[in-house]
């Protein structure tokens, strides 16, 4: 009896330890996500700096000086002397003269939203054989437990960072949960970051995209069932990838998740090519769009049929993990998401906050490119918060807002945060971004500052009365359901999937 009691106690202790390990692992992943995002931000800033006019001017200056005063020359000696004198006199810090100061040209950098980014530019790493070996081993070791799809490859403009809540990330996680081995081809800013393969146990291999486009044949081996490749952005370097997938009998899925041409017109996504997006729209086996507006755009580009698969909500996002007390206002308004000024309408927030000084505003997010101290006193900018903690912040809010700049880019977006606000039972008010298809009154739309304020007041009044309806809508929009929606189209051989599987019968 004593031994049994001891055994029971030991089991309880082991259970507690296992829980602790799980918690520690989650914490570690959170920290890792944060660090990866931080690294990406720094690299983005670095490349932005490299491409700036000032740095370019300095680079030219040093190049000119190196020509004028080469190593070992008398001029060089004079330069050094003059430099020392000037440094002492002006306490200026200068850069060394020489080739190391020349740096790399900005066009050698890449990035989904940077101008002129190429996946296989001259300065980019060609990758290592180890990565290909890892890929081959992943394919040989992993077998799908989902009967209808053997393998999945996702080409994403972002990295697999769960806390950023991007669509490709969520689809990858959901596909992996279903037992489908996923190769997640991610954008990397430079050769150095090699993502830690912390998702292998879940069935996700993360593979750098610049290497993937060079070895597309390795990505699409034949499998004992239909396999899918999701192209989440229309980079022209994916031409070869898509063609190889076609030749291997893989089902190609193009997902229109943003108006990339809109980005291109405002000086971002310099790689964008309308003709290539038209090519993807017209020749992919399955074309999906996140909303009707992008679906219409795909039809205009040549798609015969488009499946609207909106964005979704990750499971557990509405769960309040820790109670968090925050200062409340007459109305407490919150936002979480990207803070780039190409999306986020900072002037609107300033005007509304100034107009309602007794309201309290909380802004959570990343990617800000503005001085965050220059906001009214009743606005608190909290920075980046782990996704699982968002609900505990939002529990203090009356309304969630989507204050996007009015324009082509935002008007084609399907703001993920609206679904997330709904899942948390929060009323939502959106400016710039269209509302998803949803029951009336759950979320409201505004066109200017005055309407924005009025709609927030109106929405706050429905917080309790429509709470259950909002949560029900949020539940219906889970990423799990979105994933099944896409897979359903594959299984039912929708659009051109049936044709592909007839042409390549060995893939079925």
């Amino acid at each position, binding site marked *: 009896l004593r031994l049994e009691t001891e055994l029971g106690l030991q089991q309880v202790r082991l259970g507690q330890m296992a829980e602790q390990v799980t918690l520690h692992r989650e914490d570690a992943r959170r920290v890792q996500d944060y660090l990866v995002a931080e690294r990406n931000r720094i690299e983005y800033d670095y490349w932005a700096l490299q491409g700036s006019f000032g740095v370019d001017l300095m680079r030219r200056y040093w190049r000119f000086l190196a020509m004028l005063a080469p190593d070992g020359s008398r001029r060089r000696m004079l330069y050094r002397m003059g430099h020392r004198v000037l440094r002492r006199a002006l306490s200026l810090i200068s850069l060394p003269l020489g080739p190391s100061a020349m740096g790399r040209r900005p066009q050698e950098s890449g990035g989904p939203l940077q101008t002129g980014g190429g996946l296989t530019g001259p300065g980019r790493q060609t990758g290592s054989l180890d990565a290909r070996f890892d890929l081959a081993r992943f394919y040989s070791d992993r077998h799908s437990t989902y009967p209808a799809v053997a393998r999945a490859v996702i080409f994403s403009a972002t990295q697999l960072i769960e806390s950023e809540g991007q669509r490709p990330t969520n689809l990858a996680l959901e596909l992996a949960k279903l037992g489908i081995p996923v190769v997640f081809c991610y954008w990397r800013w430079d050769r150095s970051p090699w993502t830690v393969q912390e998702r292998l146990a879940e069935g996700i291999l993360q593979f750098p995209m610049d290497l993937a486009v060079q070895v*597309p*044949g390795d990505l699409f081996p*034949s499998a004992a069932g239909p396999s899918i490749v999701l192209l989440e952005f229309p980079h*022209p370097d994916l*031409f*070869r990838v*898509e*063609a*190889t997938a*076609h*030749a291997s*009998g893989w089902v190609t899925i193009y997902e229109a998740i943003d108006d990339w041409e809109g980005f291109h017109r405002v000086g971002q996504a310099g790689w964008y*090519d309308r*003709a*290539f997006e*038209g*090519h993807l*729209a*017209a*020749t992919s086996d399955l074309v999906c769009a996140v909303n009707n507006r992008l679906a219409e755009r795909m039809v205009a*580009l*040549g798609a*015969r049929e488009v499946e609207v698969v909106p964005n979704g909500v990750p499971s557990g996002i509405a769960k309040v993990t820790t109670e968090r007390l925050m200062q409340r206002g007459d109305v407490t308004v919150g936002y979480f998401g990207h803070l780039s000024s190409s999306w986020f309408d900072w002037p609107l927030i300033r005007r509304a906050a100034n107009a309602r000084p007794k309201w309290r505003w909380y802004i959570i997010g990343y990617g800000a490119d503005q001085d965050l101290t220059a906001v009214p006193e009743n606005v608190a900018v909290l920075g980046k918060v782990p996704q699982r903690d968002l609900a505990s912040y939002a529990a203090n809010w009356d309304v969630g807002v989507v204050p996007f700049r009015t324009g082509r880019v935002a008007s084609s977006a399907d703001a993920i945060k609206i679904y997330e606000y709904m899942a948390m039972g929060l009323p939502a008010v959106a400016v710039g971004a269209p509302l998803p298809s949803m029951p009336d009154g759950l979320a409201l739309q505004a066109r200017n500052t005055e309407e924005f304020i009025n709609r927030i007041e109106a929405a706050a009044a429905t917080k309790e009365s429509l709470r259950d309806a909002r949560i029900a809508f949020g539940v219906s929009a889970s990423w799990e359901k979105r994933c099944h929606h896409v897979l359903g189209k594959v299984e039912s*051989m929708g659009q*051109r*999937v*049936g*044709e592909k*599987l*007839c*042409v*390549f*019968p*060995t893939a079925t």
Partner: protein
Amino acid sequence: VKTLFVYKYLDLGGVETVLASRLAGLPSLGVDAEAWFLRDGPGRDLFGASASRVHIGGVQDLQRHLEMVRPAVVCTIDTEEAFPALGDATKDRATVVEVHTPYRENRVYLGALGRAGVKAFLTPTQYQATLVARETGNLAPTYAIPNPLDRSFLGELIPFRSKPPRPVVAWVGRLDRLKNWNEYLRVAKVAMRGAGEVEFWLVGKTNEEGGELRLMREAKRQGVLGHLRWYRGVPHDRMHGLFDGVRESGGLVISTSMEESFGLGIAEAMARGCAVVVPRHSAFPEFVEDLRHGRLYRPGSAGDAAACVVSLLRDHSLREACGLCGRKDILARHAPEVSVPLLAERLRQLAPFA
């Protein structure tokens, strides 16, 4: 008759497929055939039950194998690298040179075969036979032996459950200058105006630096990128399904090649019941008859080719009749049961002390 076929690559290409059909069919006809490849590759699976008759090794290994096995006939297929292993002509072995390549630069070696003791040249068509006779100065007799088609192209034509949404005009080949893919895109541009809703399938790969970028640029320049589906490197054992898709779409297969020793891709398309459009030159007129199997167009004229494409796409009954007739005629000449015995007979005649 102990025969050894020698080829450079063990890939998934047309020659390997032809060799696989030969190794499968020749033993039952009294020819003890084996194949030797100088470089290994992914093509071993093509040989199925005949895989034990496939050898891989360098020139020295080949020499040792020849000394050990002593075949009566050695057939090199576009593989000049093998000649050092063959040595001087011997009385108990016949050296036969098969010339399949349409690339002029790959046939340069033929002019230097004077002392190699070649007993005969084999080609897949009469056109190629004439060409080889001219280039070798009638060094040895040249015989045209039809290529056997792979068995995957012989199966029944089964209707698709899901057809391509538009008629498909397909092009198959290597993306290089000789195969003239640029002209295909020009034809596509003109044909699109006349045929309306149509899709273009380009099936092939390029080994040229920047070739893919050039393809995209040219497709964009011709305004056909949005109608072009590119299949980059379809394994040969899946090609029959692709041709089935073309046929089921109500489409056709076109060649814009500047020269062909045979035109295996077109013959395989015909075997799957596809109507074809080919230029009236080189080996094509030997097996494609105008208005019986498809259309023959004026070489170098994208406009004429496009007009032929449009006329066939519009005339459903003609296209279907061409497809069926093409299948019947091509199988009558290129089914392994027909062409392999012809080769066996020729090998018996060429063997020493025949």
